[in-house]
């Protein structure tokens, strides 16, 4: 796993991928911090929450080539024919992307030092926001990695990851729409209002349950919840395991 991690992490800096991702992250975080600083009120938690919106752009960029490129270049044969476990390949690539996120995040740590130096506070809400940021990063990187396993084409991989993350970010909205839609259909069928409301709540509640943003929104207030972190890490592990199984299955492919 260490070998894969090292190769993948360094490969971000041998190609424009790492630099592009870092440039986007640094520019946006710098812009947010500068704007806040100029207004006289700086909230690192708010900066981190805003930076979460970049997952949809940065994660597809850094994950699109993970397996798709190996397959295109024929280098995946190295992993299948070496005496290493395929899961360690998946884990190595995942951790390399996480490490790149950590490197990008150094910019925010510098902002925290500036805030502290200027007499500001770095409270539990900031720590909570950082925790959530990395747990969400783990979740979305695992989704991007799965997208890269599913296709040989980097562009398709990026689009699939983008759509997955977009849907995840809009789960609350999607839940509300679906609940309303079910309620509307039921009203055409002449079902009682109380039942329609219950169905609406059930559908929107069910879909909304999968929304990691709602689950972790209290962290920025300093209110930590282990279950929310377990939720993120469980789904991340699920997507990594799914990727591993798909890679193993390709060995048995009859196409």
């Amino acid at each position, binding site marked *: 796993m*260490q*070998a894969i991690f*090292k*190769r993948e992490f360094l*490969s971000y800096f*041998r*190609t424009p991928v790492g630099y592009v991702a870092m440039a986007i992250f640094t520019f946006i975080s710098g812009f947010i911090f500068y704007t806040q600083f100029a207004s006289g009120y700086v909230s690192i938690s708010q900066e981190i929450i805003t930076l979460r919106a970049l997952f949809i752009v940065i994660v597809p960029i850094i994950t699109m080539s993970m397996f798709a490129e190996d397959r295109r*270049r*024929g*280098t*995946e*044969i*190295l*992993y*299948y*024919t*070496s*005496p*290493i*476990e395929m899961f360690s390949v998946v884990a190595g690539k995942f951790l390399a992307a996480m490490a790149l996120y950590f490197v990008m995040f150094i910019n925010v740590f510098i902002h925290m030092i500036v805030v502290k130096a200027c007499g500001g506070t770095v409270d539990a809400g900031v720590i909570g926001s950082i925790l959530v940021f990395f747990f969400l990063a783990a979740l979305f990187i695992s989704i991007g990695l799965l997208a890269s396993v599913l296709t040989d084409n980097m562009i398709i991989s990026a689009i699939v990851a983008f759509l997955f993350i977009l849907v995840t970010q809009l789960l609350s909205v999607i839940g509300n729409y679906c609940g309303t839609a079910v309620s509307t259909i039921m009203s055409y069928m002449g079902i009682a209002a109380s039942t329609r409301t219950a169905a609406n709540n059930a559908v929107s509640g069910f879909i909304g349950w999968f929304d990691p943003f709602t689950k972790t929104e209290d962290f920025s207030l300093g209110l930590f919840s282990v279950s929310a972190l377990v939720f993120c890490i469980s789904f991340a592990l699920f997507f990594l395991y799914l990727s591993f199984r798909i890679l193993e299955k390709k*060995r*048995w*492919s*009859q*196409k």
Partner: protein
Amino acid sequence: MIEIKNLVKHYGDKKAVNDISFTVKDNEILGFLGPNGAGKTTTMNIITGYLSSTSGSVKINGHDILEEPALAKKDIGYLPEQPPLYLDMTVDEYLKFICDLKQVPAKERKEHISQIMDMVGISVVSGRLIGNLSKGYKQRVGLAQALVGDPPILILDEPTVGLDPNQIIGIRKLIKQLSKNHSIIVSSHILSEIQEIADRVVIINHGKVAAVDTIMDLSQRLSGTSKILMSFNGPAKDVSARLKMIPGIADVSIRNPGVPGEVEITLAPKAGNDVRANAFFMMAKSGWPILEFRSLNPSLEEVFLSITAG
């Protein structure tokens, strides 16, 4: 040692590999031949663990590739048809990465990599990006990665593709040298290359083993007993009559060489008879100088064409 038993691989309805069985002994070079699409690459991919077979088994030094993959793969070095190279790495970085993958102990790496680079002749490009190398160098870097970890079994798919004639000779010598303590499967479309280096050949056609033998035995099997061509100066009919009297010769036929004063005949010995010495002494005694005397075994190319035709 590699033991392949009843290997079958389906791709949908098509059987890419159909009940293939053969073994590769220790310190043996096995030529693996077949027309395009015969199932060579699929078989090699199964042997190395890249693909799984539909049925059958592959044992590498006694370890089943599916049941004990880590132990089996540790003993294999594989150079696929397209060398698995990271173009964004230097040769040195790449080989270090392969050492990591193959779990070569850290303290041995530097010397091990240096030895391999000298062996395949890539020391001069060790610091260069693989993406900037010529095709020949890339091929040799691919061969170098197969040698990392000193696996006792090497599987080389077209190892000399893209190399110039001098490099081809160098790689052939290296393969020969490696066969002293490695079992090697070599697939190549250059049949003269296989003829030169392989101890035995396996020819597959339409996913099935069409022949497994030494090249000599294959060609003899194809032509019955090996025929002999002899050209000489002398009276054709007399020579023919005298040769027919030698025990063990089944037939003598006169050929027209088109060179004045020279006669060419073909001797067909009876099965299991070596008539060369008797024929030579008879000609010498009669004062008919022999100008050429050689076996008419079919070449590997002829054997290959005969076995894979149709």
